Each structure stands twice: as structure tokens, then as C-alpha cells.
């Protein structure tokens, strides 16, 4: 809590080991002796599993061990002493290895003394290189090598063969070994020999792998839930431990009463089963323990394992307060680095501000406004750490006692920093820092230009907002994560934000053909937030290029290409030639944005993106722009040309098929006849579509759709061709469609028909409409594409997870080398030249350009 003095300690290392029975007992707060949980009053029984010495989960009670209340007491371990030892299921294989490799009489490892020292070094090396598993194999191999006629090299006595009957029964020759005997064997192994197995004698004694005492986890680890009916529902672990305790008590009683060996054996087995399923309830050979309803219990191993387990769900993944999530919608009028926050969110999310003498009066206004009125405040934290809710009633009192040192949790106001994120967070641009702008409405608003890094659209996408709560976090967010600083992708060194859709169309039209009056131009620029017009030529009519030049930096020089290959030339901040289209203003392409970024820095670039996208939109608003079915109207002459092209291709295909049937077709090298035919047909038909498309594009009249495709705003030639000319051949896995019925794709084609129509060629356009067969073929490829996406997502997700897990700890050291967490050098210089991709142009330093600018 704020205001409280905290001693910050850092964990420097964690040591893993096996706990000894003695330590279990010593550190235990209670011994559990009865399976009962609560007495008649519902109070935890002493010596039961819910004993209040193990911690408390009821609000009213105090822990008997530490005196803490609920949430204060972390809980304490207890123990059960087992009537007979049981094998710990997770160590079964290691016990077997030890039994096999050590003498059954003297306990020494079955390798002669003089050889041990010789091989320990080699074994350590094996462990370091290949892991523990490999070492165990090596030890076994060594034992097999040095065991002379099944005799121990130390005491020269005969050895037996050990076998494991899964899951946890050991056999020595023909005899079954009880856990007691196993434990006795393990006890004999001297500390010095453990080194051979790679065991650390300080961390583990092998006999500890056979349990004589079972630790009971604190109650706080297995809290019970009170149902609506007032009934208590215990945690799975408590259930399982109850079983263990119950059988253990029965076993004790039977042993004390001198029951027959058979009964004791049975109970012992049952105890082993319960202890096993307590640790791991998914051991292959034993039936999993279940609830009465048949649901499998989640015991210790299941709690840790897998995506929903402790490690991945709770330890590596965290949850936060001060965050919000809702649907997003676009607002091209807010700035690139702003996020529109709805009022409801702004009044619920808070920022803590420490009261000083200087700002007290200012924050008093917030408190006066209270939680309902914006901008207000929700809580006040006093220097002693007490948190007070601001309400109409408490307002007066709080205002009275407010003094420097208090912390006010005030509502969000414009300019606060927030982290904005959309899942899946695949790269670092998926979570960026925005400035809050409180807006009416109920959705989060973002500038359409930043959609691309988030991969967001507005068909119902939701996004998350986080409010950093400390100065350190805010500073780091602003310096490292602000949208401006993330403009250049570290993946390829080009801009990831840029104008999209209408903004591109608008700028394209502006720089291509528009001529405005000076008044109109000033109007336009002012609407984009520019109020400095001295750079606009003082003429009555100005060209679109001159208008666009105003938003360019004054001394900016650039030579590039636009989408159609024309040269784009900018001299001293004036656009001399070329159109502003996708390859210059768009995301993921073009060096224009990258060049501005390099020369003028993040702020100017984001301003430029802002200005240009607004300019584009306003141009369209002024000029007018629309798309309609009429855009696809083709002159009679062109449609007949297209038709001729299609017919021509169909005739060619027919010829191929005839040749094929007559055996005149020649196979391509490395292909069969049928394959050759298919390839040739596909080639011809694809050409048909391209021809049709080109005709539709080149000869068509100027239209909205064409403008969009030409500027790169949306759509391409193929899309237009499919709408206006013909859809073309549908392909599944690179072949024409051949699935369905025997010898045909649909029942109204003749068997063996390999003509164009029967194999998924669509001669109609979307405009003229598809016939049923064509429609069905289209649906088939559509389905295939959907399936592909559905199957790909988990696969690529897993690949990504593996990569990031393998590489997350690589970093550049102060000496410029790339090393992993242990200091092992992976690269002597990052990427062989030590360059940061975000600071280069698509990964290179352009020497030629530098020389030219100097020379």
C-alpha cells in the first residue's frame, strides 16, 4: 500500500530439492490424525484436514499458528505419518535405476572403485550436454559393462534382476519388494556413490523417495466453497487427502489389532493407490480417482501442468486491475496516438496522484465532484494506507482532512497515458501507449491508421485498455511504447502505420488531378489542423500537389516510385512529380514515411500520417466519391472482346482434351499424361482470366472502383476482373476440382467429363451472376480457404510459442555480443553488423544515397 514503508527484497535464486521426512515433521504446524473435517457446529476439527493450525479460510476465525486472520495468514503445512511407507509416484523410475545399479547387500554402486573416479567426470559432461536422462542411461551402461557375472565388484555377492511392474510395484527376481524393503535398500547407498548418479547428497537421500510421512498442504491452498444452499463443497485435494488419512487410520488400527497379513497388505495397497493419485491422478495404469458424479479429481500434478495449470496460467500469466475492455470503432479525427475513452470508463478507471501543497487546491475540485461527476475522484488513500471511498457523505470529511501525502485516485482526463492492446498480441506493436481522450459514446475509439499494427477492424473487435499506476510505469510507457516510437517495424525496418482506404484514395485524387481555388485549399488544410498557409502558392488556383506539399517538411528531399512505377520526386518539401498512393503513404511499403521518420523523428512522422490521412478524407468529402454497380459496366465492344478471349481459351482446352483422348498429347518431362493435361488446361484458363481482367481494366472507363484499385486503397485487378469480366478457374490444392461423385464432380455432368465446366471453371462474372454449378464450385474453394485458416491458427500459434520460449532470454550485452541467460555467446555481433533493424531502411544502410547527398 502507498504510504507504508516497504522493505524491497529480491529473490536471487531458488534451489530445488527433495524434502526429508524429518524436515516435513519439523516444519509442520499440525499432525493430521482424523479424516473428519468439521464438527457439528461447522467448526474445523482439531487434527483434521481443515485444522485451524493449518491456516484459515473462514472470515471470522484466527489462525492458531500465527494468529492471522483470513488473507493475513499464508497458511501452514501439516503432516500425516504413514502407517507403512509408500512409493512416491514421481520417483518410480529413479528408484528402479538406483535398485538396478546398486548392490543389494552393501549398497555400493556396481562399478569398481578405481573406475568410479575415472567416469564421474565423463558423466558430468554427459549431464551438462545431454541432460539427466542421458546420464542415467550411461550409468546403466557402465554398470552392465563392469558387472562381472552378476557379482558386486565390492562385496562380490550375487545380484538379482530388478523389474518394475507398472505403476509402482518392484520385483527382485521372482519376489515382490515391499516399499519397506525398497526403502531399506536405498538407505544402504552411501552418499559418495550418489554422486555417480548425479544426485546431490545435500539435496536428496534416495530413501526420501519412499514416503514415510506425507505433508499436508495449508488449508489456504485448498479452500472450500460454500454453496448457495449453505452446504460446503471441499476442494479436490481435501477430498483426496481425506481418503489418504482414512485408509491410513484403518491401516494403523489393523496393524495394532494384529489383523491378518492379507488385510494389512490390501490396506497398504489402497494407501499406496490413494497416495499415488494424490500426487498424480493421471498415471496410465491406475484408474483415476473420481468425484461421486464421475468427474475426475484434479490433484497436485494436474494443478501444475498444462495451459490451465499453475505455471502457465497463474505464474507466467498475470491479471491486472485498472484495465478495461470494450468494442472499438474508428475515429479518423482523433490523433494517431490518441485513444478515445468512453465516459463510463473514464469515471471508473483512475490514476493515483499524490497530494502536495502545490496541487492540493487542484485535486480538491476532483474530490468535490465525487465519483459520479466528471472529472472527479473515486478514492482517497491516507498516509497510513487506509483507503477511503469518496461519496456524497464522506466528501466533506475527506476534503477537511486532505493534506500533502494523501493519494487521490482521480478519474482519467485527456492526456493521461494508457496502454492499448488487441489480442492476439503477436508482436510488440500489439500493445502500444496512447494518450487518453475522453469522448462521449460507449466504444473505444482509435485512428484507422493504427489498425494495421493491431490487426484490428471494426466488425465487432474488442480491445483492452490499461492505465499505468506509477510514475515509473508511465515514464516507461511513454518513452518506449508510445505509438510514434513504434512506427517502424523491427521485422523489416519499414513503417507499420500509414494511410488506409479513403485517405489513400483522397490523396491519390488530390495529387493526380485536382485543381482547387486558394480558398478551397485553405479550407481543406485548415480542416486537417493546419493553420500555416505561407507555403501555399499565392495564386487563385492551386494544384493538388501544391496543397499536399504544405504538409511535407520544408527541407525534405525524396526520390521514389509510386504504385504504377512513375517517379515520385520531392524537392525541398515540394512534390514535383508522382502520385501519392499506397506505395508512398501506405503501411508496410514505401520509403517515404521511413525517410521522414529518419530525418525528422517520431513526432513529425506521426503528425505527417495524421495530416495526410485527414487531408485524404477531407478531399473525398469535398470532391465526392462513390462506388456502384455502374462502375462495372463495360462497353459492348469490350464485353465481346472478353467473351472472345474466353471462347478462344475454351477452344484451346477442348483441343487439348481431344489430343489427350486421341493420345496425341505429349507428356512434359517428369510428368504423367494426365498431369500434363491438367497443367496445360490450368495455364490456359488462368491466362483467360488475366486477359479478361486486363481488358476490363484497361479499356474500362474511369470509375470509383478503378481509382481505388489504382491507388492501392482497396481491391486489385483480380477483384475487378472477377466482378466485371469472369470469375475464372476454381482450384483446390493447385488442381482443378475433381472431388465429388465417382468420375464426376456433380451428378448432372457426364461421367468422365473433364471439360472446363465440369471441373470448376466459372465463365460468368459476379456481376452477371453464377449458375448453380458455378456457385457450388465457388463455395468449395471458399470452404477450403476457411478450413485452411482454421487449421493454420493453432499450428502457427504453437510455432510462435516455441520460438518465443526458446529465444526470450537472448539479449545484447554491454560488449555488443548476443548472449543467452547463462552468458553463453550466441552471436559476437548482433546480426553480424550490430545494426538495429528499426534504425535501418529495410535492413540496410544506404551508402549510395549518403554519398550522393554529400557529394
Amino acid at each position, binding site marked *: 500500500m502507498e504510504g507504508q514503508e516497504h522493505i524491497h527484497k529480491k529473490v536471487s535464486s531458488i534451489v*530445488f530439492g527433495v524434502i526429508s521426512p524429518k524436515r516435513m515433521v519439523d516444519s509442520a504446524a499440525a499432525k493430521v490424525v482424523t479424516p473428519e473435517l468439521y464438527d457439528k457446529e461447522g467448526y474445523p476439527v482439531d487434527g483434521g484436514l481443515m485444522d485451524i493450525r493449518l491456516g484459515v479460510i473462514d472470515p471470522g476465525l484466527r489462525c492458531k499458528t500465527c494468529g492471522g486472520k483470513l488473507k493475513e495468514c499464508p497458511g501452514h503445512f501439516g503432516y500425516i505419518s504413514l502407517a507403512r511407507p509408500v512409493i512416491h509416484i514421481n520417483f518410480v523410475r529413479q528408484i528402479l535405476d538406483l535398485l538396478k545399479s546398486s548392490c543389494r547387500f552393501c549398497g555400493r554402486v556396481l562399478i569398481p572403485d578405481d573406475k568410479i573416479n575415472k567416469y564421474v567426470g565423463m558423466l558430468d559432461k554427459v549431464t551438462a550436454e545431454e541432460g539427466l536422462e542421458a546420464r542415467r542411461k550411461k550409468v546403466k551402461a557402465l554398470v552392465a559393462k563392469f558387472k562381472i557375472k552378476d557379482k558386486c565388484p565390492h562385496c562380490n555377492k550375487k545380484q538379482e534382476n530388478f523389474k518394475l511392474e507398472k505403476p509402482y510395484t518392484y520385483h527382485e527376481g521372482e519376489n515382490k519388494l515391499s516399499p519397506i524393503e525398497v526403502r531399506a535398500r536405498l538407505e544402504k547407498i552411501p552418499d559418495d556413490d550418489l554422486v555417480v548418479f548425479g544426485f546431490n547428497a545435500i539435496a536428496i537421500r534416495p530413501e526420501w523417495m519412499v514416503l514415510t510421512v506425507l505433508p499436508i498442504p495449508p488449508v489456504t491452498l485448498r479452500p472450500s466453497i460454500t454453496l448457495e444452499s449453505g452446504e460446503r463443497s471441499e476442494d479436490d485435494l481435501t477430498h483426496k487427502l481425506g481418503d489418504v488419512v482414512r485408509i491410513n487410520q484403518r491401516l494403523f488400527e489393523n496393524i495394532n489389532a494384529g489383523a491378518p497379513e492379507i488385510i494389512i497388505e490390501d490396506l497398504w495397497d489402497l494407501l499406496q493407490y490413494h497416495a499415488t493419485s494424490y500426487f498424480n491422478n493421471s498415471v496410465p495404469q491406475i484408474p483415476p480417482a473420481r468425484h461421486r458424479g464421475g468427474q475426475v479429481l484434479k490433484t497436485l500434478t494436474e494443478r501444475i501442468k498444462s495451459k490451465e495449470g499453475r505455471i502457465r496460467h497463474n505464474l507466467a500469466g498475470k491479471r491486472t486491475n485498472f484495465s478495461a475492455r470494450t468494442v472499438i470503432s474508428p475515429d479518423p479525427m482523433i490523433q494517431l496516438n490518441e485513444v478515445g475513452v468512453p465516459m463510463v470508463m473514464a469515471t471508473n478507471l483512475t490514476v493515483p496522484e499524490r497530494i502536495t501543497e502545490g496541487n492540493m487546491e487542484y485535486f480538491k475540485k476532483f474530490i468535490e465532484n465525487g465519483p459520479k461527476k466528471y472529472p472527479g475522484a473515486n478514492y482517497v488513500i491516507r498516509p497510513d494506507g487506509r483507503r477511503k471511498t469518496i461519496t456524497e457523505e464522506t466528501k466533506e470529511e475527506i476534503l477537511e482532512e486532505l493534506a500533502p501525502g494523501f493519494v487521490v485516485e482521480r478519474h482519467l482526463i485527456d492526456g493521461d497515458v494508457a496502454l492499448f492492446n488487441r489480442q492476439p498480441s503477436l508482436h510488440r506493436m500489439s500493445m502500444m501507449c496512447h494518450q487518453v481522450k475522453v469522448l462521449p459514446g460507449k466504444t473505444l475509439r482509435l485512428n484507422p491508421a493504427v489498425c494495421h499494427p493491431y490487426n484490428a477492424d471494426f466488425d465487432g473487435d474488442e480491445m483492452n485498455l490499461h492505465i499505468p499506476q506509477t510514475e515509473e510505469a508511465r515514464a516507461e510507457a511513454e518513452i518506449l511504447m508510445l505509438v510514434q516510437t513504434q512506427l517502424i517495424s*523491427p*521485422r523489416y525496418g519499414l513503417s507499420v502505420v500509414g494511410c488506409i482506404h479513403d485517405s489513400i484514395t483522397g490523396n491519390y485524387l488530390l495529387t493526380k488531378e485536382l485543381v482547387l481555388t486558394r480558398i478551397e485549399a485553405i479550407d481543406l488544410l485548415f480542416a486537417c489542423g493546419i493553420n500555416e498557409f505561407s507555403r501555399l502558392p499565392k495564386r487563385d488556383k492551386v494544384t493538388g500537389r501544391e496543397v499536399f506539399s504544405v504538409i511535407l517538411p520544408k527541407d525534405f528531399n525524396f526520390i521514389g516510385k509510386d504504385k504504377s512505377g512513375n517517379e515520385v520526386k520531392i524537392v525541398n518539401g515540394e512534390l514535383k512529380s508522382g502520385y501519392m498512393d499506397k506505395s508512398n503513404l501506405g503501411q508496410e511499403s514505401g520509403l517515404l514515411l521511413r525517410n521522414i521518420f529518419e530525418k525528422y523523428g517520431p513526432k513529425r512522422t506521426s503528425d505527417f500520417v495524421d495530416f495526410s490521412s485527414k487531408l485524404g478524407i477531407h478531399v473525398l468529402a469535398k470532391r465526392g466519391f462513390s462506388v456502384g454497380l455502374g462502375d462495372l459496366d463495360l462497353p459492348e465492344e469490350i464485353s465481346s472482346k472478353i467473351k472472345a478471349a474466353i471462347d478462344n481459351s475454351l477452344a484451346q482446352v477442348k483441343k487439348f482434351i481431344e489430343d489427350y483422348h486421341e493420345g496425341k498429347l505429349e507428356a512434359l518431362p517428369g510428368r504423367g499424361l494426365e498431369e500434363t493435361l491438367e497443367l496445360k488446361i490450368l495455364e490456359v484458363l488462368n491466362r483467360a482470366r488475366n486477359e479478361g481482367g486486363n481488358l476490363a481494366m484497361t479499356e474500362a472507363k474511369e470509375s470509383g472502383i478503378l481509382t481505388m484499385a489504382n491507388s492501392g486503397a482497396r481491391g486489385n485487378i483480380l477483384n475487378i476482373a472477377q466482378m466485371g469480366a469472369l470469375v475464372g478457374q476454381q482450384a483446390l490444392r493447385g488442381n482443378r476440382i475433381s472431388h465429388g461423385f465417382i468420375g464426376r464432380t456433380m451428378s448432372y455432368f457426364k461421367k468422365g467429363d473433364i471439360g472446363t465446366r465440369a471441373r470448376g471453371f466459372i465463365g460468368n462474372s459476379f456481376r452477371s451472376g453464377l449458375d448453380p454449378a458455378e456457385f457450388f464450385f465457388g463455395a468449395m474453394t471458399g470452404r477450403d480457404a476457411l478450413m485452411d485458416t482454421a487449421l493454420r491458427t493453432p499450428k502457427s500459434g504453437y510455432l510462435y510459442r516455441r520460438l518465443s520460449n526458446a*529465444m*526470450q532470454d537472448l539479449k545484447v550485452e554491454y560488449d555488443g555480443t548476443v548472449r543467452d541467460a547463462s552468458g553463453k555467446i550466441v552471436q559476437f555481433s548482433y546480426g*553480424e*553488423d550490430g545494426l538495429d533493424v528499426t534504425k535501418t531502411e529495410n535492413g540496410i544502410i544506404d551508402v549510395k544515397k*549518403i554519398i550522393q547527398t554529400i557529394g
Partner: protein
Amino acid sequence: MKKEHEEFIDGYKSKLPPKIITEIKEHVPTNVTKAKLTKILEEIHGIYENAKIHSGEGVGIVSAESIGEPGTQMTLNTFHLAGVAEVQVTTGLPRLIEIFDSRRAIKTPMMEIHLKSPHNKNIDKIKNFAAQIKETKVGEIVSEFSVNLLEQTLKLILSKDSLESLNLKTEEVAKLVKAKTKSFNLTVEGDEITLTYKGKSDEIKEVYGIKEKIKLIKIKGIKGIHQVLPVKRGEEYVVLTAGSNLKEILELPEVDAEKISTNNINEIEAVLGIEAARQAIMEEVSKVVESQGLNIDARHLMLVADIMCVGGVVKGVTRYGVVSEKTSVMARASFETPLKHIVDASLVGERDRLTSVVENVMLNQPIPLGTGLPGLVTKMK
């Protein structure tokens, strides 16, 4: 360029990477003055220093993101027709996964064999060479198998055409077959080979069994080369093969060892060593990336290739490979099979020194990357 200028540029060798040095030499105008050259070099040096990566930068995660993010945009469609006459190869996401897994058996092994000068111009020579290396099995040249159960015999009638085209004689085939069929008597008659079972006469299975075995006997060519395809590349002819066997192909005298390539990274590692394997990983990954029309900087591919090869052998990005090498128990446990790692760590009494990222996330501590890396030492009064 004047010699003294060249030497002057070379003076920057310790300050600039070699690639930039050569580029400077290429682009500097020949009539440059010394003062101007100094200015150019200083300018470039300044730009280079500015563009250098910062210490503490978490380059690993950046590379992982840069490869993982476009992975979602790749197609799953395994087959991709590059051209009419090409061999089918795995591309897209499946190929990427294959490379990063470092799988022993890849789906579509492929080689591109370039030949030395006199051999690579003539189409007939190439065709001949291709036929030589193609693995041919007995099953492919036998036109008929006839089994006589009564007499316990198996008759192979060899196809004359195949024999001719492979330049083989029946006797040669018979010799190879004989070596693999010890329990049969073998007689040759024209283009027929007859096998008679030596053992007891009620063993019907034997004859059928041997038939399948015989089909798989290799008569000619190189193991693993299933398909050959001579194609023209510019001026010369090259042989594309489905199936790969780098070691044996390299031993052939006609082959141009410097140009030959295979897409089997494990073979490259075994034959040419770890550095070649690293290069191969980078090239194979960038082939996939390019074929999908994506853009990933070479530095990211380099880092992945390096992390896979840093141990001296190629390790996959899997729980058995790269991830198992980590020093931190908790980092390994947070990836896959947590139980195994915790149990093993407890036996050895392993100490996790919390030097990498996840452990510190688990403990709510700052991670040792970027701004979390530097510490502050101050003298207390």
C-alpha cells in the same frame, strides 16, 4: 580509385562492418578529394553508430515475434506449383515448422545438381547423368512376376526396354538378386530369372515374401533419389531431383560441388558441418518467407539459425532441443512437461539463479532485459 584513398577507407575497417566498406569503395566517385572522402566516411560512421543496437535490447523476443507473427499469414497448402516443370516441394507453414523442428525425415527432400563445365551444356549428357543417379529397383524393370506355388518357384521376366535404357544385362540383375536370396536356387534364361525355394515344400509364404523383397532390391543409381528432372537454367542444364543424398552425389566426378544444393539440413550438417547447416537454415527459411510474399529481416533468421546451431549440432526449437538447453529450471518447466523438469531438478538439487525472463515474471520481479537490466550502485553516507 587512387590507392591512397583505398588505404584511407581501409583505415575504417575497425569502425565499420566489411559490407559497408566495400559499398563505400564501390560508390565513392573516382575523383573525390581527400577532404570530401573524410567527410563521407565520418558521416557514414556517424550514421552507423547511430543505427547500432542498444545494449540490453531483447533481440531474441523481437526475432521470435518477427517470425511468429507472419506465420499466421502463411498458407497451409503444402503444394505450390512454382512452374510447369518443377519438382513439387513443401512450402509455407508446414515447411517452416519442419525446419524449426529440425526433423530427420523431411516431407519433400530435393536437390539441385549442377555439373562441371563439359557436362552441363549437352542435354544428352545431362539426361544420361540423370538416369545414372536415379535409384532403380528390381520392381521397376520386371515386366512380369509369375509365382508357381506347386513347384515353389518365382519367375521374373525382365522388361527389355528398361534393361536397354539402363544399359544392363540380365546376368547383372541376376547377380544382385542372388546376393539377397540365399535360400533360393537361381537360374537365368534369356531375360527370365527363375528362383526355386531350397527348403521344405509346404512353405508357401516364403515365395510370396521373397517377391516383395526382390522388388525393393536396388540395381542402380543412388539411394534416396526417387525422381530426376533435367531442366535448363539459363545457359546450362541442371538436374533437379526428388529425394536427396548429398554425400554420395558429391562423390560423383561430374558434379560441381560448389553449386550443388539440397534442402535437407541434417544432411548438410552431416556432410559439410555446422556452419553450412546454419547457412542452410537461413536460406531455407528465407525461401519460404519469400515464396509467401512476406518480408522478414535477415537478422532475425540469423538469430534463430544461430540459436539452433550454437551447441555445435543442429537442435530443433522443441522441448528436446533448444528449450531443454536452458539453465533455468522454471523457464524449462514453463514451456512443456513441467513435472519432469521439477523432479529432475530436485534430484540434483539444482539452483535456479533467475537470470532469464520467465522466472522473474513468476516472482513479480523486474526482468533482466532493456530497462530492467542496469543496476545502480551508490555510496551510502
